[in-house]
């Protein structure tokens, strides 16, 4: 008894230390995650706002088209760039020097002329009239307003020069500068101009890619798992297949990209950069995950349920479709969603099949060239403009939001359909 008591203190101490170790690991993990989130959000939240400048545009019939013109072709051919420039000159009549004028025009995004064109195409009756319109500022101005430009630097090191500063100040005093919600970020495709770029192209590319991926990998994965778990004889061949499936799950994803390049693009002649090929490649990549998760789900169905079904005379097929599959489905779906989340965040294999191209158009289907979200992040992270830094973080936030909601869906499914025996 005395000996037992002597050892007790040590045992309890060990237990406490073990607990502390686990707690420490969790805290460390949380610390890293919160650091990641804080840095991304701190960097990126400003991207959801964009600086706009109010211009009093006179829709000059000489520059666009005569009053009353409605032919879209003639309307779209108008000199809208000139319109923006004329408006700017009007705002700052003191600027006469050619070089200064160029600097002045640089305050406004090139997107402003598209915006004016759209306005006119929509409502040709504005020609010959004057109206106030908010147009996006250039990304450098945007950065200045958001405080990302250090004014203590010498002028030559700054993207915004001293005279530009004074003009912006003039605009601000006139209440012509305002930060507004950046709708463009969610409605536009990629662009060379940060203020005109958005994630919609990449998001739709990701959507089509995942759609293809899901519609291939889920049925194939579940069918393979059901066959291996329920029908296949247990012999050397099925062992070999099982080992290979586990191996496939560990193959670096870029290898799948090479495979896709060789098989789908070079051999089958599918086009490059399209979600179809991306989806096929990611389907190959997620298959092992889905098969392994589905098999685990099938295994976890208690044998007593199978026996019960067989005992009342159900055929093996009926046992599986009526009892085993419904019980295993939540687990299978969870595995599939996690596989999809993995596929959504995958970049390397898509680089191999050309989904890294600069694509401005928003894809309308699985056969249109497009980028995907993680590749878009990669492309923006590579761009030198300061404004792309915040857009990169913002795109990461959008991607993380998708991933977290997919994982939450998986957790919810598991909780909802969890059964007790």
């Amino acid at each position: 008894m005395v000996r037992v008591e002597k050892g007790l203190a040590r045992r309890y101490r060990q237990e406490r230390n073990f607990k502390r170790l686990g707690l420490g690991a969790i805290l460390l993990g949380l610390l890293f995650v919160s650091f990641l989130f804080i840095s991304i959000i701190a960097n990126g939240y400003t991207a959801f706002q964009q600086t706009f400048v109010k211009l009093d545009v006179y829709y000059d019939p000489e520059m666009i088209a005569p009053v009353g013109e409605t032919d879209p072709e003639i309307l779209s051919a108008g000199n809208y760039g000139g319109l923006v420039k004329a408006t700017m000159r009007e705002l700052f009549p003191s600027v006469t020097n050619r070089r200064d004028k160029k600097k002045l025009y640089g305050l406004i995004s090139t997107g402003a002329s598209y915006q004016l064109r759209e306005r006119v195409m929509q409502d040709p009756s504005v020609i010959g009239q004057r109206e106030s319109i908010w147009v996006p500022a250039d990304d450098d101005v945007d950065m200045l307003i958001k405080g990302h430009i250090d004014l203590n630097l010498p002028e030559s090191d700054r993207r915004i020069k001293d005279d530009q500063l004074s003009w912006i100040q003039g605009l601000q005093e006139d209440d012509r500068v305002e930060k507004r919600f950046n709708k463009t970020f969610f409605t536009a495709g990629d662009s060379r101009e940060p203020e005109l770029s958005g994630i919609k192209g990449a998001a739709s590319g990701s959507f089509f890619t995942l759609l293809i991926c899901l519609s291939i990998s889920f049925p194939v994965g579940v069918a393979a798992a059901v066959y291996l778990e329920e029908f296949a004889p247990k012999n050397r061949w099925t062992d070999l297949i099982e080992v290979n499936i586990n191996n496939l799950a560990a193959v670096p994803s870029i290898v799948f990209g090479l495979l896709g390049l060789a098989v789908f693009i070079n051999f089958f002649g599918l086009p490059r950069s399209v979600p179809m090929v991306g989806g096929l490649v990611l389907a190959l990549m997620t298959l092992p995950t889905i098969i392994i998760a589905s098999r685990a789900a099938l295994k976890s169905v208690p044998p007593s349920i199978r026996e019960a079904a067989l005992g009342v005379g159900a055929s093996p097929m009926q046992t599986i479709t009526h009892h085993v599959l419904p019980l295993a489905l939540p687990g299978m779906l969870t595995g599939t969603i996690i596989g999809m989340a993995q596929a959504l965040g995958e970049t390397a294999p898509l680089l191999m099949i050309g989904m890294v191209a600069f694509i401005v158009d928003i894809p309308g289907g699985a056969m249109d060239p497009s980028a995907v979200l993680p590749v878009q992040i990669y492309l923006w992270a590579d761009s030198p403009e300061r404004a792309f830094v915040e857009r990169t973080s913002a795109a990461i936030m959008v991607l993380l939001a998708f991933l977290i909601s997919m994982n939450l869906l998986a957790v919810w499914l598991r909780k909802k359909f969890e059964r007790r025996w």
Partner: protein
Amino acid sequence: MDDVINQDGTVARELKTGTDAEVDMQSTNESQSRGTVGDIYVDDPRMTCRNVNVYYGDKQAIFDIDLDIGKNQVISMIGPSGCGKSTFLRCLNRMNDTIDVCKVTGQIKMDGQDIYDGALDVVPLRASVGMVFQKPNPFPKSIYDNIAYGPRIHGLSDDKQHLDEIVETSLKKAGLWEEVKDRLDQPGTGLSGGQQQRLCIARAIAVSPEVILMDEPCSALDPIATAKIEELIDELRENYTIAIVTHSMQQAARVSQRTAYFHLGKLIEVGETDQIFTAPKHRLTEDYITGRFG
């Protein structure tokens, strides 16, 4: 599976004495078949088993069993753990088919038809030889669907009304109707252990089998639930042939007309239940029922 032959020292010693005893019995000519003491035959058999051997891979679990199972009778199978009684029971509706390494030889006939005949389909066999398992295993569905599942897959009901009738009569026969008639749409897994087991019996009855196999149906239940099930077994005897595996000798004595004693995969003694429990002929049987081992 609890039917793995356990060959530790004590059991091996018993086996030795057992073999000696068998030789004694055979010499006195009381045995009618391969070392089994007592009368393996009945006048009106529902199932006849001859020379049944079961192997799990290389291991033989059951040796040369001959046994008749009489109509509208309850036969109980008793014996120590791992003696092969459950394995034998599972041969009777070919549940052992689901185990890959399991091989059954010999002949088991039901109403004159060999159930291991390649031409015989296992689905109708299992419909006519129902089974109740050790642990209550209702489907995670409603009480109604639990009962209706069998009739549905076998197409036994003409319409919804007929199906309702089948469910009601099955539950009544299983003595569960009064307890659950107001909550047929609730999950079967929400019932108590004893109710679940009676639900499983009702599920087996619903496909109108001729034989019901019960594999230790009360081992997971409390005494009150056990008493209810035993009562039920006694009532069911009128319409069904029942084979029950049990660990409880009192239960065997209470519910069965015939008792078979298994030991290490061999059928040692069969006889009228009263005779087995009052005047066992074989020394192993006597040792077991008097509690000297088991």
